[in-house]
């Protein structure tokens, strides 16, 4: 089928042709949907497990501990064991909960993450949907998840959950703005919202370097706001353990809890992947202008590896934030957004426009 680790577009095209030869167009579409859906689910499950394991190990390293060491070699099977445990646990429903919404909430959160993942370019040709409004789409669907969190908090009929959900709502709605605006900065630079185009235009140099200081500021703001959007520390007000026990998912158990848990980690992956795609050149290898030999060595590393290396780097950074900083208070989190990130962002967009107008970036 023409498997090429550097370019998947040929392979996917051939697969499509192969199906078309044997089936009707409708059947082909259905089969392709199924294949893509199953592979995404597998990816979410496996990468989610990996992230949970990684977080525990990284957090342990920050705290001078070893982390899970008992189940499997270096505790590698720990998260799988935990997942099995969560699967087998009883699903407890609070007596006075709103049953329909209570059951619906985890799925909404999960669906939002799946939707956002659809446009991520993993490697050349390995992208399910290549919209010309890719970035817009991601910012739009990633904020759907907050509905799930609000529903979860409200339907649990628990005061802690409700406070957590309300905090989460206020927080995500505000930080959505910063995420979008910092992405706008790069859209100005790239001239397109299509993710594949954005990646392609970083062939010679990443936008982080290309856009000079404005894109560096945009990157930092994107990281902060992205961390806030994923409800992770230091912005984990929604599930602030020391204040609200577990926040919006206090009343959830078993696999429904696992959904929230997994969604949080996959959201972190999405933020990291967006940061990678938009600022760090996506699956493009690291190139330095004139050092040909170095660039050749870098080209040799497959794009998938590049992509995941960068993603893991960003995720490590996000974890570093979480395991260093104390949590912000709810009014401070809004102060940070409206008094600091937003004005800086707006000024930054102006700066970026100047950079683009003077063709400083070329």
């Amino acid at each position, binding site marked *: 089928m023409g498997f090429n680790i550097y370019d998947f577009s040929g392979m996917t095209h051939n697969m499509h042709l192969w199906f078309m030869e044997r089936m009707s167009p409708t059947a082909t579409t259905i089969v392709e949907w199924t294949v893509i859906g199953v592979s995404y689910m597998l990816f979410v499950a496996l990468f989610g497990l990996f992230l949970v394991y990684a977080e525990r190990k*990284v957090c342990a*390293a*920050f*705290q*001078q*501990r*070893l982390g899970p*060491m008992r189940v499997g070699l270096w505790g590698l099977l720990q998260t799988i064991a935990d997942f099995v445990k969560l699967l087998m646990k009883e699903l407890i429903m609070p007596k006075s909960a709103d049953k329909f919404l209570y059951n619906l909430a985890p799925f909404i959160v999960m669906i939002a993450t799946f939707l956002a993942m659809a446009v991520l370019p993993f490697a050349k040709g390995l992208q399910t949907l290549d919209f010309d409004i890719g970035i817009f789409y991601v910012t739009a669907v990633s904020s759907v998840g907050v509905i799930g969190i609000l529903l979860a908090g409200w339907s649990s009929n628990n005061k802690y959950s409700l406070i957590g959900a309300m905090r989460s709502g206020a927080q995500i709605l505000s930080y959505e703005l910063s995420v979008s605006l910092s992405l706008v900065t790069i859209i100005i630079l790239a001239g397109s919202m299509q993710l594949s185009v954005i990646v392609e235009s970083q062939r010679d140099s990443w936008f982080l370097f290309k856009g000079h200081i404005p894109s560096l500021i945009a990157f930092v703001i994107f990281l902060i706001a992205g961390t806030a959007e994923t409800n992770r520390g230091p912005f984990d007000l929604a599930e602030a353990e020391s204040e609200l026990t577990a926040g919006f998912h206090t009343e959830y158990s078993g696999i429904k809890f696992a959904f929230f848990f997994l969604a949080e980690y996959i959201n972190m992956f999405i933020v990291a992947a967006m940061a990678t795609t938009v600022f760090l050149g996506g699956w493009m290898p690291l190139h330095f202008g004139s050092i040909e030999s170095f660039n050749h060595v870098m080209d040799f590393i497959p794009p998938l590896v590049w992509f995941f290396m960068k993603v893991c780097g960003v995720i490590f950074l996000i974890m*570093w*934030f979480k*395991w*260093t*900083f104390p949590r912000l208070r709810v009014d401070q989190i809004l102060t940070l957004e409206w008094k*600091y990130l937003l004005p*800086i962002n707006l000024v930054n967009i102006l700066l970026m426009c100047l950079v683009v107008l003077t063709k400083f970036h070329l």
Partner: protein
Amino acid sequence: MNALFQYISTVFKGVGTLLTGMKITGKYVFTPWNNVTQQYPENRDTLKMFDRFRGEVIMPHNENNEHLCTGCGICELNCPNGSIEIISKMELTEEGKKKRAIDQHIYHLGMCTFCNLCIKACPTGAIVMGQNFEHAVWDRTKLTKVLNQPGSKIAQGVKE
């Protein structure tokens, strides 16, 4: 203009303090050989408690199955929680005199607070604190121990 200056300096100062914090945690994350975790059941062989560690009350016996306990009951009196019970018996000495001796030195580990008062009070040094700290058992009746071994007797020359 002054306000703008202040604003910018607030931002930079804030970011600076955050980076200082990240430097500290970063220092530790990249030096994993400084980790402090001890892998407990695996390090049993090398794990040594301090010699004064108060793990449980034990009554040492010598190779002839002899101990130093006279059965005087001072430890029982000194115990604040009633975790020691002395059952004494009357024995005939070689001279034909009746003498009190220990029959059973019962020790309820489950009630013990390891306060060391019994050890301190013991006039003959018959009981000491042991180093064992793995006391978990499945059945709480196993926490009640008889400290003098069956068939043991008091060592020669120990007086009350």
